[in-house]
């Protein structure tokens, strides 16, 4: 009875998940209490999230565990303490590493292509499609009138009538 086993398994997983949720529920609360989040920490985190870790390039320097990212976070903290604004700090990293350091590239220069490119391509594709479709559906200039059509031949006419009769029944 694989179906019975399966449903038992599902029930078991659901039960253990529920138990796990109950057991671990106080966890995050206790954790949050341990972390002393000051306004400075907040600011460091907000800036660090916008900067790319230069070694592990898919991560931002807030998430990265690398030494370089830790050193960069420390620099952010020190510069904030010296009274620099988040914009000044980001500008500093930008001047050292270029656009690469930003998780979200700036919209300027060739970078415009990244942002506008897909929409431009969509527009071009849409125009081509509508052109082609309108050409396909355009009425041919010498579309036949009722008179000009070839008359129905006898077998076809008989067949249509048969079909209609059987449809009526």
């Amino acid at each position: 009875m694989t179906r019975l086993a399966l449903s038992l398994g599902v029930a078991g997983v659901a039960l253990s998940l529920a138990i796990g949720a109950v057991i671990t529920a106080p966890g995050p609360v206790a954790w949050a209490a341990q972390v002393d989040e000051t306004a400075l920490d907040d600011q460091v985190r907000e800036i660090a999230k916008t900067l790319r870790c230069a070694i592990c390039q898919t991560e931002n320097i807030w998430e990265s565990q690398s030494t370089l990212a830790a050193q960069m976070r420390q620099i952010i903290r020190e510069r904030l303490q010296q009274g620099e604004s988040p914009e000044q700090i980001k500008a500093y990293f930008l001047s050292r590493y270029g656009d690469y350091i930003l998780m979200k590239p700036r919209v300027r220069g060739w970078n415009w292509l990244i942002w506008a490119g897909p929409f431009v391509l969509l527009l071009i594709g849409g125009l081509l499609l509508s052109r082609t479709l309108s050409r396909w559906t355009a009425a041919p200039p010498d579309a036949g009138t009722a008179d000009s059509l070839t008359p129905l031949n006898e077998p076809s006419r008989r067949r249509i009538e048969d079909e209609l009769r059987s449809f009526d029944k």
Partner: protein
Amino acid sequence: MSDPVGNPVNTPPNNLMPDNARFQLRGWHLALVAALVALFLLFYKGLWGDPSAIPTVLIGTTAPTFVGPDVVNGSTIDLAQYRGKVVLLNFWASWCQECRIEHENLLALYGQFRSNPDFVMMGVNYQDKLDDARHYLEVYGSPFQHVRDFKGTISIDYGVYGVPETFIIDKQGVIRHKQIGPIVGPTYTLLTDKVLPTLLQGAAAPNAS
């Protein structure tokens, strides 16, 4: 063509498309094909090369100054005191395999240019333990000085994201060359035959103190 019963179908005359709508090669067709080919080439090019290479923005800008302790004896090294000289800055670490590969070349390069009074060579020890760094220098030799980048501030000032990286600063204090990765083969000869001799021949800035 015939229908299932075998009767000839009233075949539509070939007038569904007006004659003037037949395909004609127009200018914008060519432009579209060219654009697609260009896009394809761009993607194709993206398949090769080092995806982690970060294009440097520092060439042509004033080299950040720094002050730090000497790795070996702890005395203070200040980059500003070498303004007016050509400085080769080499970022390295004892745990870095590629640094070991280029080390022989660094020694040879230093041997070639050390007699020139306008030439300064300096190592920057990157993310390293002091004991490991000292041991490395003892084993592999270090005729030139090395500054310890204690908190990563020097490296980040120079936009370093891995070692080895090498910068060449001209007599005006401007970064003129950056090498990511070890100085071996053509990279070595580029430095010894072109970059360094050219910069060493250059005059110091009149306002260089």
